[in-house]
C-alpha cells in the first residue's frame, strides 16, 4: 500500500465553457493531468476536485471514458469550492483524485433502448454514459433524452443538445412559460408522462434534484417500467470518497463506494436518507 488516498494529482484546466449564466451559473471544465496518469474511469463515476486553500468537492465525470484527451466536469456554482472553480481561468491548475464509486452497467444493456431523463445540473452525470452509448450506437436500440430546467437559460450543453437532435429524440422542458420558447412547459416528470416512453426492452436513467427523481420514478412506474429498468444516481455529501469518513451512507451503504449508481430495485430497499 504505497498510494496516499488523499493526495490529489495536478491537472490543468484546458477549456472552460459557460453553460448557464445568471444566479445559478454552471460551467464546464476540461482538464488534463500534468503528468501521465493511470486515471481511468467508467461512466457514472466521480472525482474529488481540489482547489488548494479552499478544499475539495465531489463532481461527476461528464466525459465518456472513450474520450482519452481530457476529463470533463460540469459544475454548478454553489459554495466555497465550486465558487473558486468558477473563478478559475484556462491554464489554471487544480487537483484531482479518484475515480470513485460504481458505474452504470452499460455492458449489460446491449440491444436495449436507453431513455435518459435529466433535470438541471443532473444532466452532467448522465452525459458520460449518453456519449458512450451514442458512440457505440450499433450496440443499443433507440436512444432518447427527456431533459428540463427552470428556464431555457438553465439548460446545460445547449449547443450539443441541438446537434444531438439529429441523432436521437430529445424532449426539452422549462418550468414556466417563456416567450420564444416552444418546448414543453412543466416539470420533468410531467414531460415523461406526456411523452409516454415505452418500457419495452428499455432502460431508463434519471438524474436531478431528489424531488424530481422521486416523481420521475413514479411516472415511469405508471408507464409500466419495472424497478430493474430504472436507474438513478444518489448525491450525498462526501469528504473522503472511500468509505472512511462515514458521511455519505444510506443505511449500510456508503454512496461513495457502493453508489452513486443504483437501480430502483436496489435503492428502494435502502432507507430514505438522500
Amino acid at each position, binding site marked *: *500500500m504505497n498510494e496516499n488516498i488523499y493526495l490529489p494529482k495536478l491537472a490543468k484546466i484546458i477549456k472552460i465553457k459557460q453553460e448557464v449564466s445568471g444566479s445559478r451559473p454552471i460551467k464546464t471544465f476540461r482538464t488534463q493531468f500534468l503528468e501521465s496518469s493511470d486515471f481511468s474511469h467508467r461512466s457514472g463515476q466521480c472525482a474529488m476536485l481540489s482547489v488548494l486553500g479552499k478544499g475539495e468537492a465531489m463532481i461527476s465525470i461528464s466525459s465518456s471514458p472513450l474520450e482519452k484527451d481530457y476529463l470533463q466536469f460540469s459544475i454548478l456554482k454553489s459554495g466555497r469550492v465550486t465558487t473558486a472553480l468558477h473563478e478559475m481561468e484556462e491554464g489554471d491548475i487544480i487537483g484531482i483524485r479518484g475515480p470513485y464509486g460504481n458505474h452504470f452497467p452499460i455492458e449489460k444493456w446491449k440491444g436495449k433502448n436507453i431513455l435518459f431523463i435529466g433535470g438541471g445540473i443532473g444532466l452532467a452525470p448522465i452525459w458520460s454514459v449518453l456519449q458512450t452509448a451514442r458512440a457505440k450506437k450499433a450496440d443499443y436500440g433507440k436512444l432518447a433524452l427527456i431533459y428540463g430546467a427552470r428556464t431555457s437559460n438553465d439548460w446545460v450543453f445547449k449547443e450539443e443538445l441541438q446537434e444531438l437532435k439529429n441523432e436521437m429524440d430529445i424532449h426539452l422542458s422549462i418550468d414556466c412559460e417563456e416567450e420564444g420558447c416552444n418546448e414543453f412547459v412543466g416539470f420533468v416528470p410531467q414531460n415523461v408522462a406526456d411523452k409516454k416512453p415505452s418500457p419495452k426492452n428499455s432502460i431508463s436513467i434519471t438524474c436531478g434534484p431528489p424531488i424530481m427523481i422521486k416523481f420521475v420514478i413514479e411516472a415511469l412506474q405508471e408507464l409500466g417500467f419495472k424497478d430493474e429498468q430504472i436507474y438513478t444516481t444518489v448525491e450525498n455529501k462526501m469528504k473522503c470518497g472511500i468509505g472512511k469518513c462515514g458521511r455519505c451512507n444510506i443505511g449500510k451503504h456508503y454512496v461513495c463506494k457502493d453508489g452513486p449508481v443504483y437501480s430502483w430495485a436496489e435503492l428502494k430497499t435502502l432507507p430514505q436518507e438522500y
Partner: protein
Amino acid sequence: MEKILTKKEFPSWIKNLKSFNVYGPVKKDALWEYERIQDPDKLDLNFKNTVLSPKKIIFPQREVILDFNHKKKGKPEIQEALPEETKNVIFGVRPCDARALTLTDKVFEEEPGDKYYLRRRHQTVTVGLTCSDPPSENCFCTSLGGSPHSTEGLDILMTELNHKYYVHSFTDKGRELMKAASDVFKNPSEKDKKDLKQVHKESEKKIKRQVKELSKITDKLKGMFDSPFWDEESMSCLKCGICTYLCPTCHCFDISDEVLSSSPLKGQRVRTWDTCQFPYFTMHSSGHNPRPDKSSRLRQRILHKFSYFVDNYDDYQCTGCGRCISKCPVDIDIIEVLEKVKDYE
C-alpha cells in the same frame, strides 16, 4: 511471555524504553488524559477512566494530511504530511478501548488503506491494564463480547496483583517491549497464576450494567428505520455531539483546508474528527439535508453501531466503555435505548 513485575520496579522498565515515546494516563485538573510521559516516576496506573480513549494517539482529533504551496507563477506543490516515524508505547490502555482500536482498524485497513492511521497504529505498542474494579459505573463491556481483561487489540496486558503486576505479552511487539528490561521481570509462581485467574473472574462479576440479547436487538433495528421511536428517544438531545466525540470507536472525520499565508499561497489540508450529531455533517450546499433533525441523527448513531457496522464488518461498533452514557448532559443512555428497542411495539 508471562512475567511478574513489582510496582517498585515499574519505573525501571519504562526508563529502559529509551527509543520509545511513552504515553500513559496523566491527571490534569482532576481529569485523566493520555499524554506523553517524560518522567517515568510520574506514570500512574491508579486511575479511573480517561476522558478520551487512546484512539486520539493513533487517530488524532486534528491532523495535517497534506502541505501545499503555490507561488504566483509556477505550479502548485502538494506534499503528503505523513506522521513521523517513531516508536510509541501506550500504558494503561483499558481493554474496551483496545478492542475499539480493532474496530477502527477494520475501517482504516480496508482497501484502499489509510496510510496515516496505519503508520501510527503499526508503530504503537499497546499495553493494557485489567480493570480489577470497573473504572466507570456505566461499563458494559461484557455485553459486547469483551471483558475487563480482554486482550483483543493489545500487545501486552498487565493485571494488578497487590504490590505487583502480572505482565502477559501476546505479540512480537509486546515481547520486544518486555525484553527491553528483561532483568526487572521475574517468573510468576503458581500462586501468581491462581491469583490472576481469581482477579480476572472477580473483575467480570463487578460489571454491573448490561444489554441482554443484543443479536435480537440488531434484528429488530432492521425494521425500525421509520419508527416514531427515534423522535421519542431524541427529544431531550442537545445536539452537542459529546457522545460521538468521546467514543473510542467513532471514526467519522472532516477534511478541510487551512490557509497559513495567502500570497504566496501556503497552507495545510487537515482532517479533524466530525460527528453525525451535527446538522452540517450531511447538509448539501443546496440546503437539502437527508438527516435534518436530531431524531434521524440519534437513529444514525444507534444504527451505525448496532446494525450497519454489523452488516459491513461483522462486529458491533461499540465496546461498552460507557463514556457516552456518563457524559451526555441530558442522560441519554445507550443501554436504555437498546433495551427499549427490544420491547418496542
